[in-house]
């Protein structure tokens, strides 16, 4: 039903229509509105049967999801930022055990310094955890990705993370078509676990595996994720048949057909990027944009098919891999191995800094004019960082090193 609502609330209602049987929740901004609404839906009786469990930490939340999922219940939780990192040990465990848990990540920066605003540092840090990662471009897609996530998780026996930008999407009010119960029931069948803890047919789950089989187990984990490359578009197509909407899938190209320059982005910034692309197209610039919805598994072939023939690729990164630069760029580069083109990494919007159309216009103009560095921090306050770097160079480090003695001698002159 189409209505004006908050992103978090739309997600919560959609998740409720997916009929989860266990929800474990610990509050963290900006995920809170999702689990608050779900607690209301469970307590009011609108969502039943469902056990809503208030836990003492995100580590316990994911651990409880592991137990519930292994016992055959459809299981859901949501988190963000430090909370996701507090779960990490259990995240790897959930995927290793092949448990189809669905989790919303309301993307937020990681401290220190503490910062509650949006970027992708949290979910990007879990790119190797074995979870499928889907990134929503807007609140309609954030809502729509959840039924698809349950379908994928349960078909593949793998956990799925739905990533939506914190505050930018979670707290934004929009017109959203929240799927009705009957529609959802037509799309998402009841959960049939691959294996379940059942006293009538006992199984041991989570046995120790030594060197003789561990590589094979990991290989199979990889092979299973690669199967998702086929399943994700198929489930998205089925979703379109039932709901009549385009949501999910591996990638979303926008005006890429004849583009010489393509901007790659994930999440809510894609809307702004598309606006800028439209405006630049009016000026006759051959530019396009590519959203990557499925970051894990990474759709190497699909990305190569779109970017393979262009002159220039600019990857907008919403997280920083300290010591190297871009995370998404490295994956895009793998997709383009053997192809010569002009590639740029742009670190943008860290910790909630607004990514404005003005900045993007300047950025893309620079790229097209050949003025863009390979690694750029969008809207960096260069005066501030240069001042700080100079101060750091002046400051004495501990120890009687020759460098410090010479610096002291210099300062005495």
């Amino acid at each position, binding site marked *: 039903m189409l209505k004006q609502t908050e992103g978090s609330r739309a997600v919560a209602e959609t998740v409720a229509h997916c009929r989860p*049987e*266990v929800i*474990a929740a610990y509050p963290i901004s900006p995920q809170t509105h999702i689990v608050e609404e779900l607690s209301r839906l469970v307590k009011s009786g609108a969502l039943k*049967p*469902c*056990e809503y*469990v*208030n*836990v*003492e*930490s995100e*580590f*316990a939340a994911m*651990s*409880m*999801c*592991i*137990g*519930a*999922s*292994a*016992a*055959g*219940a459809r*299981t859901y939780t949501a988190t963000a930022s430090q909370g996701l990192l507090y779960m990490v*040990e*259990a995240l790897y*465990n959930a995927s290793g*055990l092949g448990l189809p848990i669905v989790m919303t990540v309301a993307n937020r920066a990681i401290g220190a310094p503490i910062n509650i605003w949006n970027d992708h540092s949290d979910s990007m840090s879990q790119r190797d955890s074995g979870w499928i990662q889907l990134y929503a471009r807007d609140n309609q897609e954030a809502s729509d990705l959840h039924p698809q996530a349950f379908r994928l998780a349960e078909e593949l026996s793998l956990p799925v993370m739905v990533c939506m930008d914190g505050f930018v999407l979670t707290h934004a009010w929009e017109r959203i078509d929240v799927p009705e119960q009957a529609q959802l029931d037509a799309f998402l069948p009841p959960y049939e676990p691959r294996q379940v*803890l*059942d*006293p009538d*047919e*006992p*199984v*041991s*789950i*989570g*046995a*120790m*595996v*030594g060197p003789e*089989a561990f590589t094979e187990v990991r290989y199979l984990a990889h092979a299973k994720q690669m199967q998702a490359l086929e399943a994700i578009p198929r489930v998205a197509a089925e979703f379109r048949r039932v709901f009549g909407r385009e949501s999910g899938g591996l990638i979303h190209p926008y005006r890429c057909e004849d583009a010489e320059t393509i901007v790659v982005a994930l999440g809510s910034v894609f809307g702004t990027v598309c606006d800028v692309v439209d405006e630049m197209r009016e000026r006759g610039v051959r530019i396009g944009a590519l959203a990557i919805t499925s970051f894990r598994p990474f759709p190497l072939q699909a990305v190569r098919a779109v970017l393979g023939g262009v002159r220039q690729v600019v990857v907008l990164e919403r997280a920083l891999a300290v010591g190297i630069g871009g995370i998404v760029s490295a994956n895009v580069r793998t997709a383009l191995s053997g192809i010569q083109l002009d590639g740029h990494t742009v670190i943008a919007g860290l910790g909630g800094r607004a990514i404005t159309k003005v900045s993007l216009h300047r950025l893309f103009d620079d790229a097209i004019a050949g003025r863009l560095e390979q690694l750029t921090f969008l809207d960096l306050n260069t005066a501030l960082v240069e001042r700080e770097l100079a101060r750091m160079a002046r400051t004495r480090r501990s120890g009687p090193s020759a460098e410090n003695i010479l610096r002291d001698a210099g300062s005495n002159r």
Partner: protein
Amino acid sequence: MSAAPQVRFYQVGSFAAGNRLLGPGLQSDQADPARANALTCGHRACQGCGEALGARYILDAAQRAAGGKVIAVNATGCLEVFSTPYPETSWQLPWLHSLFGNAPAVAAGVAAALRAKGRTDIRVVGQGGDGGTVDIGLGCLSGMFERNDDVLYVCYDNEAYMNTGVQRSGATPPTARTATTQAVGEEPGAPFGQGKNLPLIAMAHEIPYVATATVAGLRDLEAKVHRAMGMRGARYLHVLVPCPLGWGTASHDTVRIARLAEQTGLFPVFEAKDGEVTDVTPIRRRLPVEEYLRPQKRYAHLFQPELRTDVIARLQRTADRNIARFGLLAQEEASS
């Protein structure tokens, strides 16, 4: 007992066989050839492992109490490692291992799933060693207590991290030698401190049932499992399980050492309901702590090169305090 007990078979000189001569109501679960056999033989525990012994008795009893409908959740540790080297398993019941510090939360998740599915017939037992319980898993355990999740959690306390090579845990007693509290220096072994008394911490949560037991009192252990399984909500069982490897004791001495821990008062055996102690197992023949310490290599530095009467006296005071606090002396001895 009116009905004549049914004798299945007989072994001369065996306490277990004597057990079989008792009426059905008094027999040990283990005396029944049709017991659940939750943890089969052929696992890889050390000879004389107190934890293997305890786990077998506890899960068989839990299975009997629940009509065979039990799901076990295990923390990382010896019990998990020696029972499930892929592709083998010693578990005859549904069993789930996730991580070291999350067994209480995983067990609570299983319980939540069963509640959602309306399966009140299936019961959940969580289990872990003292490291997984009193140290890394304490937060999850406290959460499980606080929510009163319908789980019986069992801590197999062998008083150190035995699986990783005998390092100190929050349950290691003072002066005990471990790989990280070596018997060297001014105060050899683990330092004296307040200790982390998890049964008392559990009682502070006012959960329906808290009990301690040792593998010396196996009938008592079974009875406590049956009692716990007769209740709903969060229940906690803390079982002393001597570790021949870590304690430096003979493999055949496990039960005797556990009994000495009880008889000296160092390990008080009691039950508590809703936060109040309701019953204690009295000490029938009180012994000085020295009798318990002497056979264990982890306390060898208290006896050589010189006898540390001062340290032993300090440990004796701990035992005396336990005896007074829980009223552990049997009536006749207390009055004599």
